């Protein structure tokens, strides 16, 4: 399965719950297996993305933080 990123979402500067809602919308438009990268600056997005992936069954492949930017790489399942 490819891990090439199909879409990058720039969610920097947005506050909760915008990053999750925009990601949910973007993931909806992807095909199963597609990978999306989301960049956010809201520290609260970390627990939100972890919980959202767990609840929806989408796979959080990796997440990290560089200079205040939180990066999430998510694979759409099912």
């Amino acid at each position, binding site marked *: 399965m490819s891990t090439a990123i199909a879409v990058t979402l720039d969610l920097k500067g947005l*506050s*909760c*719950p*915008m990053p999750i809602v925009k990601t949910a919308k973007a*993931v909806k438009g992807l095909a199963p297996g597609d990978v999306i990268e989301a960049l956010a600056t809201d520290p609260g997005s970390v627990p*939100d993305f972890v919980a959202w992936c767990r*609840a929806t069954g989408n796979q959080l492949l990796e997440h990290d933080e560089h200079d205040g930017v939180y990066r999430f790489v998510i694979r759409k399942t099912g």
Partner: protein
Amino acid sequence: MPARVVVLGGGVGGTLAANLLSKELGRDAHVTVVDPIGMHVYQPGFLYVALGQANGRWLARDERTLLRRDVELAVERAERIDATEGTVQLARGGSLPFDYLVIATGARLVYDTVPGLREGSYEFYSLEGAQRLREALRGFRGGRILVGIAGIPYKCPPAPVEFVFMVEEYLRKRGLRDRSQITLLSPLNRAFTIESASKLIQPIMEERGIGLSTFFNVEAVDPSAGVVESLEGEKAEYDLLVLVPPHRGQSLIDASGLGDSSGWLPTDRATLQAGDHERIFALGDATDLPISKSGSTAHFEAPVVASRIASLVRGTAPKANYGGRVMCFLETGKGRATALRFDYEHPPTPPQPSRAWHLAKWLFNRLYWETVPQGRIPERINERSEP
């Protein structure tokens, strides 16, 4: 010659900014408020109309009566802003030149982005919507009530939570509570975006038997089946659906080429300057700032805008900055409320719901007309009031 200041929008922010500017600058400025209807609407009251606790008349006043005598009111629809020329084109023809412009045009509700929304759901974000919902609730005989939001950002973030608490009480008083289920649909895994507020709210929801459906981002409504669908692929059946419609900036902003893709104005978070236009400011719901869209935000922003424009008119360096301050009441039912006070740097630490905060909200609703538009609530009290 006095500086020409044009304020677009006669809501909380526009009215207060105009009054403060006129008070501060006197004859050094000629302030004109342009508003398409010339009526000032107190939107927090819609919630009470929907629940049959207030009538529509209490919620609107002639904007003229709220403005200082020397502020001009033009009941006109502004069609386009020419930022370079420094003019506002009016829909009826003609244009209004300005030296300084305050854009306080608010948000509008858009229904068409969510299929089935208009036919399948009720809302309390407009007077007509609140009156329709009131009738629907009067005719309600029990069943499933779902409450949620159909788009973000939206005005007054605590309103859906307040609504579930208040409708729970309403149904109890009417003897329908046993035959009804109330569920809040949340885009996150908690009842409210702000974590500290969720921690306070969720136990009360549980205690009152109000359900919470998490990560439910509304995608579509099927009115014939009575089903609402989420982006996450879930479906929920309802008998009465209450959804906050998606919001957008005004078409005037789009037509002027000043807004982002949703019609919000890119605004400096501290100076409230719109884009890179030194003489144009934005406040309230019209901005793209990542803070609550609410009257309270506009209320705290207006003095900053007024002070900065006054400094520019006088040729001194503007000093006032907006720190992101917002203050929201949150009704929790049973005659109690809490309050969320926060800014860019400090998340809120809401107090336990009490009668005192409920009374404070009640009092604020009643005193609004005589205090807020005129700038009669002292800064000090705004900042640290404990009822």
